[in-house]
Structure formats: structure tokens, C-alpha cells
């Protein structure tokens, strides 16, 4: 576990005030655990499957009995599912939002678990800080809303974006270009990048602050009076730790919310 603190060996305690790795990439490329043929299974992949497994287990054991008087565990899971169904799907998309609730619920719970891995002791790595996962989920949402847009409105979906009727004639071409660019390129891009960058920033801050703190305090003999700096870093890291709990939950919520908004814009394009 401890050799994961890559900074430890390279940190020059006499001259540096914070232990930063030479290349931040090494904080995000976890070691390969084992091979299946040509396929290298890294810790990230195992964690991804673990997150999916946790979500399935939570939903299965939470809703298996479905008694009228719920146990505490069932009540928690029910309130999560109800939250996505009522407060996200039906509030944003409208009455037919219930149809998209399963997708949104699965995505929300997976992202929630994946994000919370960031602050889970002994795991401490958000799987959503690898671009593959946010990019894939954004791509699924993208395919869903583009497909819905064309299947509900036919070619009018595209023409309404390129030539918006609500805008004065002289400006339509300009708004059309901006809308086309934002709908088909910026939407999936920002959806993925938002989640990814938030979690990368969080993981980076936690590793730098807590890692530096631990190393400065641990190597008390070498650092001498400078290990006081470590106490400061560690305290600051703990504040960020609490902040990251909020970020993890909020980013899962925002990703789900924006997916619902994009689906809504395809189902009812006139708004």
C-alpha cells in the first residue's frame, strides 16, 4: 500500500515545500494486477467492476423484499431511486420521464460509487478520473438524445437547430451555427470533461496535500523543524477531503441532471 505514495522516494525534503511528482500521470496510472492472455488487468478495471457490482448488490438487496414497512436499508435505497425518478427524471423530462428513470438511476448510482471511491480508505482512487468512463457514459447519453431527437421529430430536429424559427431572420444563420456546434460537439465533450476534470482535480489535491503531509511528518528526522509544514498540509488536506465528499455527490448529480436535460431537449425540442 505504502509504495503507492510515489512521491516518497523522490521528494527532496530539504529544498521542497510540497512533494509533487515529476509527472502527474503517474498518480492516475495504477499498476497492472494480473494478465488474461494479452489483456492487462489494472487496478482501475477491477475497481470499475467493483463499482458496478456494488450498485447491483445495493439495488438487489435493497429492493428484494419490497415490504410496505421498509427496513432502514430499504428506505435508503428507495429514497435514492425515488430521488432520481421524481426529482430528476420527472421534474426535468415531464410525465414520460419515468421511462428514462432506469438509465438515469443506474448511471447516477454507478457514478456516485465511482466518485466516492476517491475518498474511500484503502481505495482512494476515483475511477471517473480516467477519461474512459465519463467519455463512455457521455457517449451513451449522446447517442440516446440524438436518436430520440431524430425519431421523435424526424429531420425537423436538425432543421430547427440550424434554422431556429424563434430567432429574427437576420440572425438565424449565426444562432444556427452556434447551436449546431454546441449541441453536437460541445454537449458530449463538456459533459465528459466536467466530471473527469473535477475528479482529477480532487484526486490531485488530496494526493499532493495528504501525501506531502504524511511524508513530512513521517520523515521527522530528516526534515527537522520543516515537518511543521507537513502538519499544515495535512490539515489543509483534511478540509479538502470533506469538500471532496460534496464534490463527488454533486458531480454524480450534475451528470445525471444534464443527461436528463439533454434528453428533454430532444423529446420536447420547442422549449
Amino acid at each position, binding site marked *: 500500500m505504502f509504495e503507492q505514495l510515489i512521491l516518497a522516494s523522490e521528494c527532496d525534503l530539504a529544498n521542497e515545500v510540497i512533494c509533487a511528482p515529476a509527472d*502527474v500521470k503517474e498518480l492516475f496510472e495504477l499498476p497492472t494486477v494480473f494478465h488474461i492472455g494479452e489483456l492487462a488487468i489494472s487496478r482501475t478495471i477491477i475497481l470499475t467492476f467493483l463499482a458496478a457490482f456494488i450498485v447491483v448488490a445495493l439495488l438487489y438487496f435493497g429492493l428484494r423484499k419490497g415490504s410496505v414497512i421498509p427496513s432502514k436499508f430499504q428506505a435508503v435505497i428507495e429514497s435514492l431511486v425515488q430521488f432520481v425518478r421524481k*426529482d430528476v427524471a420527472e*421534474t*426535468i423530462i415531464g410525465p414520460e420521464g419515468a421511462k428514462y428513470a432506469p438509465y438515469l438511476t443506474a448511471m447516477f448510482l454507478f457514478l456516485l460509487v465511482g466518485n466516492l471511491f476517491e475518498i474511500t480508505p484503502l481505495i482512494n482512487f476515483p475511477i471517473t478520473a480516467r477519461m474512459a468512463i465519463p467519455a463512455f457514459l457521455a457517449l451513451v447519453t449522446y447517442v440516446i438524445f440524438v436518436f430520440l431527437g431524430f425519431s421523435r421529430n424526424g429531420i425537423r430536429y436538425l432543421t430547427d437547430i440550424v434554422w431556429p424559427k424563434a430567432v429574427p431572420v437576420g440572425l438565424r444563420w449565426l444562432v444556427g451555427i452556434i447551436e449546431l456546434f454546441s449541441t453536437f460537439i460541445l454537449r458530449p465533450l*463538456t459533459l465528459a*470533461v*466536467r466530471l*473527469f*476534470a*473535477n475528479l*482529477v*482535480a480532487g484526486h490531485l489535491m488530496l494526493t499532493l496535500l495528504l501525501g506531502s503531509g504524511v511524508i513530512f511528518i513521517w520523515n521527522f528526522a530528516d526534515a527537522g523543524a520543516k515537518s511543521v509544514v507537513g502538519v499544515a498540509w495535512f490539515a489543509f488536506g483534511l478540509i479538502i477531503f470533506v469538500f471532496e465528499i460534496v464534490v463527488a455527490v*454533486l458531480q454524480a*448529480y*450534475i451528470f445525471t*441532471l*444534464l443527461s436528463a*436535460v439533454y434528453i428533454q431537449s430532444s423529446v420536447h425540442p420547442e422549449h
Partner: protein
Amino acid sequence: MEGSIEVLKGGLALMGYGLAAIGPGIGIGIVVGNAITAMARQPEMAGPVRTTMFLGIAFTEALALIGFVLFFIA
């Protein structure tokens, strides 16, 4: 010579991120400030206002985050 160009690139990337953070910083302040005003005036609308506030924050924040990602790519 090679090293100094690397340092220059790093410094420029850092400045780029700083510049990218100005606009969204102001923007998120405006979004949240107005949302708080709205919630204080009509507490019964707090739920919808909060949802819209998060949407506004998410859209505004994207710019800063793109700057943050470009800082590492550059």
C-alpha cells in the same frame, strides 16, 4: 535551452489556466448570488431554483475545467 523552453511552456500553461478561471469565477458568483436572492424572496420555490442553479453552475464551470485540462495537456 531545451529546459528553459519547457519552463516557459509550463508557465504559459499556468497563466492560461489562471485566465480561464476568471470568467467562470465571476459567472458562478452571479449565478449563486441571484439564486440565493430568488430563494430568499420566494422560499417556496427553493427546490426548482436550486436545480436550475446547479445547471447554471455546471454550464459556467465547464469553461474553467477545460482550462484546467488544457493546462495538463499543454
